C-alpha cells in the first residue's frame, strides 16, 4: 500500500514540476531552469521548517515566493535570447543552482546533532511530517491539495484572457508585439509563475523524501520538467498530468518487471507517443472534439 501512496506522491510533485514548465512553454520558451527553481524551493522550505522551526504551509509559501523572485530575476536577461540559446542559458542557470547547493554549508547544532544543508552530502533529516505525526496518507493528501489548487488556478488562467495572451506570444511573437502585447512582460510573468509553482513542488519534495542533495536537481530533472507538458500537450493542464502518470506510473514503475530492457522501451515509447500524437497526448483537436460531444449531450438532454 505504501508503495502506491509513495507513487501517488511522486506523481503529484512531478505534476507541479511539469506545470511550472507548462506555464513557460505556453509562451513558446523552452526553459531548463525549472529544476533550479525546484531546488531553491526544496532547500528554502526545508531550512525554514528544520532550522527556523516554521510550520509547513508558511514555509512552502515563502519557498514559492523565493523561487518566483529568482525566476523573475533570471527571466529578464534569459528571455532576451530565444530557442536553443535560451535552452543553453537556462541549463547554465540550473547547473549554477545545483553547484551552489553542492557547496552550500549551513548547519546549526541542536542537542549534539547538526542539522541543515551540508554541501555535497546534502540536507538530511527534513522530518517535519514524521515529527508532527503525519501518516504517508496524510502527506499524499496534502501534496494533492496543492496540486489540485495549482491545476485549478492554471485551468482558470488558461480560459481567461491571460491564457490567450500567453498562447498568442507562443504562437507568433512578432504578431503579438504588433497587436500591442508587451512580449517581454508576458514572458517574464510566465517565468515567474512557473518559478512559484516549481518552488511549491520543490518544498513538498524536500519534505516527503526527508533527504535532498544536489544530484537530484540536475539536468535530468530539468529535462523531465519540460518533457511532461510537451508529451502531454499544451492545450490544457490535464495533458501534463496525464504525461506524468504515463511516465512515472507506467514507464518507470509499471515496466519495472522488464529489468534492463525498461530503459530502452522507455525511450522508444516516448518517441512512439510523440509520433502518434505530435501535438501532445491531449491536443487542441481533442479538446474541441470533447467540447462538441458534451454540447451534443447537453442539447440532447434539454
Amino acid at each position, binding site marked *: 500500500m505504501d508503495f502506491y501512496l509513495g507513487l501517488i506522491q511522486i506523481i503529484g510533485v512531478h505534476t507541479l514540476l511539469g506545470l511550472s514548465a507548462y506555464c513557460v512553454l505556453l509562451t513558446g520558451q523552452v526553459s531548463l531552469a525549472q529544476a533550479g527553481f525546484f531546488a531553491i524551493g526544496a532547500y528554502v522550505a526545508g531550512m525554514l521548517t528544520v532550522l527556523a522551526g516554521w510550520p509547513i504551509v508558511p514555509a512552502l509559501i515563502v519557498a514559492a515566493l523565493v523561487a518566483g523572485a529568482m525566476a523573475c530575476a533570471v527571466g529578464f536577461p534569459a528571455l532576451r535570447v530565444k530557442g536553443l540559446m535560451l535552452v543553453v542559458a537556462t541549463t547554465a542557470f540550473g547547473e549554477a543552482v545545483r553547484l551552489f547547493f553542492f557547496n552550500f554549508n549551513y548547519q546549526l547544532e541542536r542537542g549534539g546533532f547538526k542539522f541543515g544543508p551540508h554541501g555535497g552530502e546534502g540536507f538530511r533529516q527534513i522530518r517535519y511530517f514524521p515529527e508532527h505525526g503525519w501518516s504517508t496518507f496524510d502527506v499524499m493528501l496534502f501534496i494533492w491539495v496543492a496540486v489540485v489548487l495549482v491545476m485549478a488556478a492554471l485551468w*482558470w488562467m488558461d480560459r*481567461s*484572457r*491571460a491564457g*490567450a*495572451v500567453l*498562447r*498568442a506570444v507562443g*504562437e*507568433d511573437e*512578432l*504578431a*503579438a*508585439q*504588433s*497587436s*500591442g*502585447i*508587451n*512580449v517581454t512582460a508576458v514572458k517574464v510573468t510566465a517565468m515567474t509563475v512557473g518559478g512559484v509553482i516549481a518552488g511549491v513542488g520543490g518544498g513538498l519534495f524536500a519534505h516527503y523524501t526527508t533527504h535532498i542533495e544536489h544530484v537530484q536537481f540536475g539536468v535530468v530533472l530539468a529535462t523531465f520538467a519540460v518533457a511532461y507538458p510537451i508529451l502531454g500537450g499544451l492545450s490544457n493542464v490535464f495533458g501534463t498530468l496525464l504525461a506524468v502518470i504515463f511516465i512515472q506510473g507506467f514507464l518507470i514503475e509499471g515496466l519495472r518487471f522488464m529489468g534492463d530492457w525498461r530503459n530502452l522501451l522507455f525511450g522508444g515509447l516516448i518517441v512512439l507517443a510523440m509520433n502518434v500524437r505530435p501535438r501532445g497526448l491531449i491536443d*487542441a483537436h481533442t479538446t*474541441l472534439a470533447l467540447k462538441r460531444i458534451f454540447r451534443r449531450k447537453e442539447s440532447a438532454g434539454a
Partner: protein
Amino acid sequence: MLELKGLTKHFGGVRAVDNVDLTVAQGEILGLLGPNGSGKSTIVNLICGLFPLTAGQVMLRGTDISELPPHTRVGMGIARTFQNIRLFGQLTVWQNLWVAQNSSEQTGSENFLRRWLGGSRHARAEVDRALEFFDLAHKRDELAANLAFGEQRRLEFARALAAKPALVLLDEPAAGMNAEEIDQLDARIRKLRGEGMTVLLIEHHVELVMSVTDRIAVLNFGQKIAEGTPAEVQANPLVREAYLGTATAA
C-alpha cells in the same frame, strides 16, 4: 497624423529605405506603391518599430515615436497587417481578436484583474461586432489555422482593428484574393474612411489602389520617386520607368 522625416534603414550595405519623407494626413488613405524590394514593407516595419532606424524620425501626431517599442505604438494607435499572414493559429477566431484589444483607451478603462481574467462585457461585445463586420461571426470558435485563405486575411484585418487604431497599415491586403473578395475589401476600406480611420495601403493590385486611395507615393530602390493623386502618379514618367524599365535607344 503620421510624418516620416528622412527615414533611413540600411541592412549592412543595402539601403532598404533611403531618406524618405512622407506625410499621411488625418482621415486620408495613402497608397504606397513600388516594385518588389523597393522598401515598402520595410517602411511599415519601421513605422511599427520592429527594428531600429538607421537615421530619421517617425512622428505620430507631432510626437517622436522613433524609440518606442512596438506594443507601445499600438497603444498609441498604430496597427498593421502582415504581407504573409501571421495569425495566432492555435487560438480561436474570437480569441485572436480578444488578445489584440490593447489600445491605451482599452487598457485604461478596465481594472487590471478584470482585463486579464475576463474582459468586460463591453470588450467582448466589441469582438462580436468586429466579427460581424468582417463576416466571420459563424467561424468564431474555429481555430484560426483552419480558416480558408480569404477568411484569414479578413481575420488579420479585424485583429489590426481590434486595438481601435487611428492609423492602420495594410501590407498587401488583397494578395491572393479573388475579384469578389477584393470588392469587399474595397468596400470595407471605404467604410473605415467614413468612420475617420487613416490608412496606409501597400498593394500591388492597381485597380484597388487607384479606386480607393486619395494619394499615392511611389518608391523605387528605397527612395520616394513620386507622390500625388492616383491620376498624377499614373502619368508620371519616373513611375513608368520604375515598373517597366528605361527605353534603351534602339
